[in-house]
């Protein structure tokens, strides 16, 4: 198969499925739509695997726009390949938006991630939505939107230029919106989807401004050109030299502003503080879609964005990378702390997602071009992205199974489930071990590399924070795990019509697939071969000292969780009673949402919008009405001028003459 001929179908097929399923939603039953959607995505997944496989392991070439033949690999270095690039809209001579297919190690990796997770979610959803199915006809809509999301996400990672990325960026945003709001009759879901969309939209505005600044100066959107030769184009465009930071705006280097704005876009999607507020609420969506969008794929778009522009960041704006790593570290710790206090199992996972994405951000932030040590973060980040996608998706899907049985998200309705759902128990356990960073599960490798990167690049404080976070992570994950599966059996199970049980194969198969991927990750071909900043091969140093510490910290976390939560006891309550304010403060997510609401509802809505509306109604409109009123009023108040008295008429007449004469003559 020619790559160039199959590549368009990777994008076209999901799009067609979206349109097809959307238009025929009332024609087919939900199951039929689900089957069609799943099969179609299965084809897409195969194509993705094929392309990724060919890219990493095979050999092929495409002809680039200059007419040179580009191979996927030159020696050890993977090349960036533009499989196709179609002009979509020409803005100026240089600024042309293309829709294309850009293949490099990270996008190939993302292809695999997306294909895998999305396919699994397609399969899983069949069971989940069908049986859970309030809503048979909604299922077609669900699958349609899943297809839309897959299309958008694939388009995003395959973008050849930053504007294409922005386009698909918005599309994933909207599909996320639609999926969160899938249960649109639930007010909570409605407000969650609005929140998600508006917050990310707000961040996207910065992304757009960043794109505008960057592209105006660089006169291109293309990643190829932006990143080429150590971001030389950008450096020149912004007149960055060794001595100066180039063009300044308001005293800041413009490049810093531009790249930071772009990062803010990513921060919005990736739920970095302070844009993280939407992600916990987004859990109102169906659990499989949370697994896909809010755990594995869309939320890492921000990480992917920074990785995609990594040369620009690294060479032209390293200070932004610093900022990224500090923001990331803060977010990681912050989210982990909040996760400790949450009782909704999906919320816990959501905060853990925030925290884990922050890990990736930190890893990127500490990374620089230079040597293998400094570039380690990049690879670590990508690795963590991959591993996290797998185990977090698995955790979410497990949650889906649990919620399916218990019909509640709250921990207090659970406990002792291990007896009833063994497979889920095992998978969830694997996931927790992985996220805690226990070898040999996948999380161990990626997290370890991240910590190493922090440490080795001299970010000691960050390293400490991240290690602490790792401990917290293992604590809250196992708190969750024990709370759900052990603790104390919920008496209600006995009285339930359907006792909790492992689900049918559609829902179990994905769990197993992910579990396998998580457990046997160490068998994978090394990420150090290709998915690196230089796209070449690199050594992955293993710092046993750091690994050891991280394992120890993780085990400590697990241990504490075991003590506190394995069997029902009073200890957690006692601890919480010691500082109830702090607990409720943390439970309330540190009131960040309230601050946001304060700004938006009270200030923007209450003050700005209301006052503008008031101004419009009373001043502008009022002025027009006043003009009309004054005219009319004058009219009615001048009745007396036409008094009916003929002598008055003449008086006016003669006075008119006199006045005119006076004015004209004197």
């Amino acid at each position, binding site marked *: 198969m020619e790559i160039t001929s199959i590549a368009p179908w990777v994008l076209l097929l999901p799009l067609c499925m979206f349109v097809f399923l959307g238009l025929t939603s009332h024609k087919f039953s939900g199951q039929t739509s689900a089957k069609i959607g799943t099969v179609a995505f299965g084809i897409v997944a195969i194509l993705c695997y094929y392309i990724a496989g060919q890219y990493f392991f095979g050999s092929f070439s495409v002809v680039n726009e200059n007419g040179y033949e580009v191979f996927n690999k030159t020696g050890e270095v993977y090349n960036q390949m533009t499989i196709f690039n179609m002009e979509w809209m020409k803005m100026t001579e240089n600024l042309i938006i293309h829709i294309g297919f850009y293949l490099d190690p990270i996008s190939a990796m993302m292809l695999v991630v997306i294909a895998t997770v999305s396919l699994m979610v397609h399969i899983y959803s069949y069971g989940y939505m069908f049986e859970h199915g309030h809503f048979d006809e909604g299922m077609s809509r669900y699958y349609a939107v899943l297809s839309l999301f897959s299309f958008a996400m694939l388009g995003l990672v395959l973008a050849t230029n930053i504007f294409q990325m922005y386009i698909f960026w*918005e*599309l994933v945003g909207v599909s996320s919106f639609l999926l969160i*709001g899938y249960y649109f009759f639930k007010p909570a879901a409605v407000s969650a989807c609005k929140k998600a969309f508006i917050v990310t*939209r707000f961040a996207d*505005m910065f992304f757009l401004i960043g794109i505008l600044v960057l592209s105006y100066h660089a006169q291109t959107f293309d990643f190829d050109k932006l990143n080429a030769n150590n971001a030389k184009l950008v450096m020149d465009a912004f007149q960055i030299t060794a001595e100066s930071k180039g063009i300044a705006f308001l005293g800041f280097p413009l490049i810093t502003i531009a790249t930071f704005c772009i990062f803010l876009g990513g921060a919005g999607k990736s739920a970095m503080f302070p844009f993280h507020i939407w992600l916990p609420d987004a859990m109102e969506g169906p659990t499989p879609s949370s697994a896909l969008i809010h755990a594995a794929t869309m939320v890492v778009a921000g990480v992917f964005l920074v990785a995609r522009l990594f040369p620009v960041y690294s060479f032209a704006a390293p200070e932004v990378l610093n900022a990224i790593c500090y923001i990331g570290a803060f977010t990681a710790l912050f989210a982990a702390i909040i996760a400790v206090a949450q009782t909704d199992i999906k919320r816990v996972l959501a905060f853990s997602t925030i925290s884990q994405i922050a890990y990736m951000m930190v890893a990127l932030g500490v990374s620089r071009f230079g040597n293998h040590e400094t570039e380690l973060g990049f690879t670590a980040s990508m690795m963590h992205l991959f591993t996290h996608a797998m185990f977090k998706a698995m955790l979410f899907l497990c949650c889906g199974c649990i919620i399916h049985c218990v019909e509640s998200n709250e921990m207090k309705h659970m406990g002792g489930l291990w007896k009833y759902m063994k497979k889920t128990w095992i998978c969830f356990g694997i996931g927790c071990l992985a996220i805690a960073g226990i070898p040999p599960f996948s999380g161990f490798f990626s997290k370890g590399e991240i910590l190493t990167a922090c440490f080795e690049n001299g970010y000691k404080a960050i390293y400490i924070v991240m290690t602490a976070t790792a401990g917290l992570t293992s604590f809250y994950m196992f708190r969750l795990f024990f709370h759900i599966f052990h603790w104390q059996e919920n008496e209600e199970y006995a009285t339930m019509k359907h006792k909790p049980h492992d689900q049918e194969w559609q829902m179990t198969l994905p769990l197993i697939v992910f579990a396998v991927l998580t457990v046997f990750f160490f068998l994978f071909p090394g990420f150090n071969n290709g998915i690196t900043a230089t796209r070449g091969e690199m050594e992955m140093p293993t710092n046993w000292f750091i690994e050891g510490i991280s394992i120890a910290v993780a085990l400590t976390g697990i241990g504490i969780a075991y003590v506190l939560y394995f069997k029902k006891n009073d200890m957690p309550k006692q601890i919480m009673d010691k500082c109830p304010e702090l607990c409720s403060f943390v439970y309330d997510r540190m009131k960040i949402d309230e601050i946001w609401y304060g700004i938006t509802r009270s200030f923007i809505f209450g003050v700005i919008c209301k006052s*503008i509306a008031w101004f419009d109604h009373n001043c502008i409109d009022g002025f027009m009405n006043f003009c*009309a009123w004054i005219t009319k009023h004058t009219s009615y108040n001048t009745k007396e001028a036409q008094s009916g008295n003929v002598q008055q008429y003449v008086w006016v007449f003669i006075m008119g003459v006199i006045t005119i004469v006076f004015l004209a003559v004197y």
Partner: protein
Amino acid sequence: MSEFILLYFVIIPLVMMGVLYLIPGEKKDLIRKTMAGGSALLVALAAYITIEFIEQRSAGATAPYLFTASKVWYEGFLNIHLSLGVDGISVAMLVLSSVITFTGSFASFAVEDKAKEYFLWFLMLSIGVFGFFISIDLFTMFLFYEVALIPMYLLIGYWGSNAKEYAAMKLTLMLMGGSAFLMVGIFGIYFMGTPDGAHTFEMVTLMESVSKNMPIEWQHIFFCLTFVGFGVLGAMFPFHTWSPDGHASAPTAVSMLHAGVLMKLGGYGCFRVAMCLMPQASADLGWIFLILTGTSVFYGAYSACVQNDLKYINAYSSVSHCGMVLFALLMMNQTAFTGAFLQMLSHGLMTALFFSLIGSIYGRTHTRDIRLMGGMMNIMPVLCVCYVIAGMASLGLPGLSGFVAEMNIFVGSFQRSVLSYEEGNWMFLIFTILACTSIVITAVYILRVVGKMLFGPIQDQHHASLSDANYFEKIAAFGLIICVAGIGMYPSLWTGILNFDLPRLVSLFADKTIVAPF
């Protein structure tokens, strides 16, 4: 008459008016069929013109206008011509108008009361609109502009809702006020812009002669007058206030045609008459209007956030979007121009879609207060999905038309802003960034509607038994959605058509220094 092929845009509605006049008022079905057929004919004509235009341009026709035909109307001194012609911009507008007339006709099928008269006025409105876009003579342009104004009054006043009489009067009078500015401007252009004894209203001649003949001080005056004149129709702050009331009270199809097309007359006129004829003046004084239009962009958006009436929300969003059109025009570079005209198309289509849907919903629930509705998605899924699509187009979702327009506008504005910033002026940059913020606010108010009205639990149990869209509403909505998506997916078609002519027009402004006060 083949050289007057453009005149068919006026003749077809005229003939339709004649036919409708002959049909007795009770035969509503026949009237509707006539409308459907006739407006379909208009769409076909517009399509034909578009294709033919592209072919001719691609074949190398470089005349500023194609399909030109000119016939002296008032001979001698006045030298008024009936001059027809189209360039890329007008072709786009013609397509927009015909599509909206077509869908508007379908959306009007629900009109029962005096359907015949309704359609007669509706056709007159469309005559004005079409006539405006095919004219290349200032006099006929102005004439058709005014022709389009007056049917609005009766359409809103009779078939409207709420404070319809107030709104109708306000709208008519304010637009008339605009035309007062405009008329003075036109006189100025006519008498001072052409040498004595060779006065003419013809755009082609005026394009060259105005800047040559008119002293720059007078150009400033007449630029302001014409810009304000058309700006009123384009809902420029602070002359926008007719728009919310007018749109809120107008019957469905009238809102569609009005917001969709008539408001575009404003932007089109600002560009064609005020800017292209007096480029130097627009470079000198554009900043005044930039402040106003920049204000309307975010002002409309913020106002929309706190409205509770669906139509008001949409009307304020129109203020915002149409402000964007004028805003982009004043940026005076090709990308911004492209964006402006795309925005015209896009806003026209999506706002028409909005209004047709609102009309359908209102026709069922008899309320437009979003606080009183909820969970419509359960009740009338088709209408609501269409509404969501319209909303997405409005907030600039890629793949729908709003996105391409806005992106062009932002890129274009940004280019101008940076140039201006490098000269030490802040103004353009500030307003460009303000305009950017409007995309967030747009999302806020669109989602507010979607969240409150379409999603959520069913608010009013009386609504639960309402029906979903019927066939003509579907035709209207789907037709518009196809167009919206068409532009959004494949913008090159339209940028291509526009770019046949824009470079020529952009060159008018190329050598001018754009003045900014700060």
